[in-house]
């Protein structure tokens, strides 16, 4: 019955949608998501279980593979990529950190990547609140650093980003299809 009701609702909303003049925005095909270090910080915070302050937050949109060949085709090798979909990926540091040996003062940045099969060039850029990498301006780079790409065992359907604790700090893991990189961040 439940399935029928959902179907009915869908059909009804489908038919009604013709008569409606203004419709609110649809949900994005590549939904936005957020990751933090410490992981799940907002939940830890309201449970009073956070043992360290918030270090970093990344806001990105998650395209799906949907049977397509991603790297080398959908995402071309050697070109600046927004690391996701829609708006450019935003990374915000709540304290000064070091990436690729360079200091990154606390603040909000855009994160881009130039991908290839073996090495990704990660770019931290000062120009925020922008769409894609269409207006990427290398003059606003804070730094570039190369990280090796690895193969994943499983096929990652939805592009994923999350943080992992390491001996020297943390790593931002970025994975899609069967490629994965780790960007080391020294705290």
């Amino acid at each position, binding site marked *: 019955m439940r399935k029928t009701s959902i179907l009915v609702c869908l059909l009804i909303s489908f038919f009604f949608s013709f008569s409606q003049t203004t419709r609110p925005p649809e949900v994005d095909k590549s939904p936005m998501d957020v990751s933090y270090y410490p992981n799940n910080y907002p939940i830890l915070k309201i449970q009073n279980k956070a043992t360290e302050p918030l270090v970093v937050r990344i806001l990105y949109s998650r395209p799906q593979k949907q049977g397509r060949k991603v790297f080398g085709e959908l995402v071309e090798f050697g070109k600046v990529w927004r690391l996701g979909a829609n708006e450019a990926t935003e990374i915000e540091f709540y304290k000064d950190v070091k990436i690729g040996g360079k200091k990154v003062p606390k603040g909000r940045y855009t994160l881009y990547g130039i991908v290839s099969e073996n090495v990704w060039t990660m770019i931290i850029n000062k120009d925020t609140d922008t769409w894609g990498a269409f207006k990427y301006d290398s003059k606003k780079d804070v730094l570039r650093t190369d990280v090796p790409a690895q193969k994943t065992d499983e096929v990652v*359907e939805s592009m994923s980003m999350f943080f992992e604790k390491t001996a020297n700090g943390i790593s931002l893991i970025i994975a899609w299809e069967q490629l994965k990189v780790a960007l080391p961040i020294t705290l």
Partner: protein
Amino acid sequence: MKKILLAALLPVLFFSCTEPENKTAGNDTPAKADATVKVLPPVSNYTNPDRSPMDIVYFPTDYPLLKMTGKTTTPPLMRVIYSRPQKQGRQIFGGLVQYNMPWRLGANESTEIELFSAATVAGKPVKPGRYILYCIPQETKWTFVLNSNLYSWGLEQNRQKDLMQFEVPVEKTNLAIEYFTIACEKKSEKSTALVFLWDDVKAKLPVSF
């Protein structure tokens, strides 16, 4: 083709008449499900997208696109980051979202509002900065609350960190909105209403810069 459409519509009409009897059954809601949320080790690191996906609204509307296409050179004025639960046949206001109880205006994390310039919100001056925004809905009016407890999950509000409140009347919409939606209704270059839409309810919070 017309016949096929008609054939498709008939069962719809039939079922929609019998539908209300089942409406009250089973209210296992995402919002309630995460009331018991524990931080569990993930099965795979590569998680699926959230059931209530996150979204972002800028003022000026679509600011990143305007910027990309060279249609604006000034900084954005405001942005809101929220998650979008769905109605899924449930009664929302007075049901899933209880009256007189704080509501996170979305799902998952608290809704975040960032004012990039000094603003006037519902007639009151507000300093530029990042806040969380929640509301206390009633049948005929909503009380919006700005709070400083950033980066928090939206199930619990730390009321001690409330900064300001704004009361606005609510309107009814003709059509039930499936996805909770926040949008900007532009009044002028520097003035907008943040519009909150879900089910058959619409609330507007005027913001100008």
